[in-house]
C-alpha cells in the first residue's frame, strides 16, 4: 500500500450553494482544508424564497413500523461517490506502516484489465465519479493505461496513488493520454536515509523525479505522508519538500493501525508530545501557505482519544475493490468480513452496494449498542471505526476503543501512555510479498530506481 489510510478514501463533497442543516454528504477528516463554499445561490430561476430546503438528510434505516415482519426491504442507500481500486498488492516498498492486510493477494489472483474495466463501468452506473488507482504499487500493472482509459471513458475522475517508483516520462505520458487526471505520491521522510529505513527500500530519488514529471505534465500533484514516531518531528521539512516539489496539497495522515501497521504499532506510536508539536507546526504552516498549498491533517485517533468518522459511515460514500475483486466498505475491512466479503467476480457491484450483508451490516445506526446508541456524537463519528473495534476487541459492533467513552478505551490508553517517551522508534518488522509471489523475481527489479 502506498500509504492511503482508510480514512482518506472518500472525497470531500461540497454542496454548492450550501443548504440548511448538515449537508447530505461530508468528508470524514476532522480537519479539512478549505471550508465549503458559502456563496448564496447564484441565479434563482423562478422566485425562490418559498421553495422548500434543497436537500434533506438522507433517509435513515428505519423500516415502516406497520410492515409485516420479514417483508420490509432495506431503504435504498445513497449512491457511492468514490471507488478505491487496489490494482495489486505487489509493491517495491515494504513500509512499516502499511495498512494492507497481513495476507496479501498474490499477483496471479488479480483481476484482469477486462475485469477492472467492467468494475469501473458498473461503478460509474452506480454513481461513482472518482477512482483512486492504488495498491500496492499500481505501476506494476502493465495494463494500467487500459484501466485508466476505461475509467475515463465512463466519466470517472482518476487519481494515481503511487510510490513514484517506476513512473518514467514515457509511462506518465501514456497514462495522461489515457485520461489520468491527478497523481498522489507517497513520501516517508524528507531525509532519504530515514525514508529508506521506514520504507524498507530506497526510493527518494525516484519520488523526486516522479514529482517533477507530474508537474511538467501539468497534472495536480498531491503528497501523502503517513505520520508516526519517526517522522512527526520532521513535519516542517516535509512541508518544505512539498513546496520544493510543487505539490498542490499534502495529506498528513497519522498512522491508522490496521493490517501490517498494527504489527509495528509499538514502534510507530508517537509520543503525545510529538503530536502536540506537530499540530503547532501544522497551524503555523497552514497560515503561511493559505491559498498556495493545502495541508490536510488526518488525526491520530489513539492519541486524541476521539473516534474518527471512518469512511463517512459504513457503506455510505465510497467502496474499495481489492486486487482479487473483493468488495469492501472500507479498505481495512477484509479481516473483519473474512469469508462474508462479496466479490465482483460473483455478483454485480450494484447488488453488493445496495444489499450485501457486508455493506448493510453497519450502515446507518441500527447496529449500534451503548454507549454509541444514545450518544449525541453518533451522527458525527458513526460510532468510529468498525475495523478498529474488531482488531482490538474481536467484536466489530463495539464502540471504537479509541473513543474515551468506550468501555474498552483502557486498551488504547495504556499504549499511548507507554509511548510517552522521547526515545527513537524501535526496529520495524518489514513485510514481504504474498507467499505465492516469493519465487518470482524481486519486484524491485521490475521498477528499479
Amino acid at each position: 500500500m502506498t500509504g492511503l489510510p482508510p480514512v482518506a478514501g472518500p472525497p470531500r463533497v461540497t454542496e454548492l450553494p450550501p443548504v440548511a442543516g448538515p449537508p447530505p454528504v461530508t468528508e470524514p477528516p476532522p480537519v479539512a482544508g478549505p471550508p465549503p463554499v458559502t456563496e448564496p445561490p447564484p441565479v434563482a430561476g423562478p422566485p425562490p424564497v418559498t421553495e422548500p430546503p434543497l436537500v434533506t438528510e438522507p433517509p435513515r434505516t428505519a423500516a415502516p413500523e406497520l410492515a409485516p415482519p420479514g417483508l420490509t426491504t432495506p431503504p435504498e442507500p445513497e449512491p457511492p461517490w468514490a471507488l478505491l481500486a487496489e490494482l495489486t498488492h505487489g509493491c517495491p516498498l515494504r513500509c512499516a506502516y502499511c495498512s494492507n492486510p497481513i495476507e496479501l493477494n498474490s499477483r496471479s489472483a488479480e483481476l484482469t484489465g477486462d475485469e477492472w474495466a467492467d468494475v469501473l463501468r458498473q461503478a460509474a452506473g452506480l454513481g461513482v465519479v472518482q477512482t483512486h488507482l492504488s495498491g500496492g504499487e499500481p505501476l506494476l500493472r502493465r495494463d494500467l493505461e487500459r484501466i485508466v482509459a476505461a475509467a475515463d471513458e465512463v466519466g470517472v475522475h482518476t487519481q494515481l496513488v503511487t510510490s513514484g517508483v517506476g513512473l518514467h516520462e514515457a509511462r506518465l505520458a501514456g497514462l495522461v493520454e489515457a485520461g489520468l487526471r491527478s497523481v498522489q505520491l507517497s513520501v516517508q521522510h524528507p531525509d532519504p536515509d530515514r525514508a529508506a529505513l521506514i520504507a524498507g527500500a530506497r526510493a527518494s530519488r525516484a519520488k523526486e523525479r516522479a514529482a517533477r514529471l507530474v508537474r511538467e505534465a501539468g497534472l495536480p500533484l498531491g503528497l501523502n505522508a503517513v505520520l508516526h514516531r519517526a517522522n512527526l518531528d520532521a513535519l516542517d521539512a516535509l512541508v518544505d519538500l512539498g513546496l520544493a516539489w510543487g505539490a498542490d496539497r499534502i495529506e498528513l495522515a497519522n498512522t491508522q493501525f490496521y493490517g501490517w501497521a498494527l504489527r509495528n504499532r509499538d514502534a510507530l506510536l508517537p509520543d503525545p508530545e510529538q503530536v502536540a508539536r506537530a499540530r503547532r507546526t501544522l497551524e503555523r504552516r497552514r497560515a503561511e501557505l493559505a491559498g498556495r498549498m493545502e495541508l490536510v491533517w488526518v488525526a491520530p485517533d489513539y492519541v486524541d482519544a476521539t473516534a474518527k468518522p471512518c469512511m463517512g459511515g459504513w457503506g455510505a460514500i465510497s467502496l474499495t475493490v481489492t486486487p482479487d475483486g473483493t468488495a469492501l466498505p472500507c479498505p481495512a475491512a477484509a479481516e473483519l468480513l473474512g469469508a462474508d466479503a462479496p466479490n465482483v467476480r460473483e455478483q454485480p457491484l450494484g447488488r453488493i452496494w445496495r444489499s450485501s450483508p457486508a455493506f448493510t451490516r453497519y450502515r446507518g445506526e441500527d447496529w449500534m449498542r451503548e454507549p454509541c446508541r444514545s450518544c449525541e456524537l453518533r451522527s458525527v463519528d458513526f460510532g468510529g471505526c468498525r475495523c478498529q473495534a474488531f482488531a482490538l476487541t474481536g467484536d466489530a459492533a463495539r464502540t471504537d476503543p479509541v473513543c474515551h467513552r468506550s468501555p474498552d478505551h483502557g486498551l488504547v490508553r495504556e499504549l499511548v501512555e507507554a509511548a510517552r517517551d522521547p526515545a527513537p522508534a524501535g526496529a520495524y518488522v518489514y513485510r514481504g510479498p504474498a507467499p505465492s509471489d516469493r519465487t518470482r523475481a524481486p519486484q524491485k527489479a521490475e521498477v528499479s530506481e
Partner: protein
Amino acid sequence: MRETAPRDRGTVAAARDAAPGDRVPPEWRPVRARSVVFRHDRVRGVDLLLLPERVVVLRGAAGSIVALCDGERDVTAIVAELARRHPEAPVDAEVPAFLDRLREEGWLR
C-alpha cells in the same frame, strides 16, 4: 437539468450580506481550471466539478453558469445571457460574486 433553484431561509439571509461582486472585472473571461472536470451526473441529476479528493455539487442554476465559463464570454456577456434566461432573478447582484468565489477556490481562471 431543471433550472429551478429552490433555496432555504439560511441562504437567503446569506444573500443579503453577500458582497455584490464589485471587484470582478466585467471584461474577465472566466474559464474552468485545467485540472477541474465539469460534468453532469446522471445518477444524481446534478452538475459536478471533479477535482482531486473533492467533488463540488452544483445545485440549482450553478451548473448552467459554470457551463457558460468557456473562456470566450466575458462576465458582462455571461450576466446578460443569464438575465435573458431568468428575467426575474437578481443575476446582476449574484453572478459576479459567485464567479469570484469560484476563482478564489482555483476552479475558474
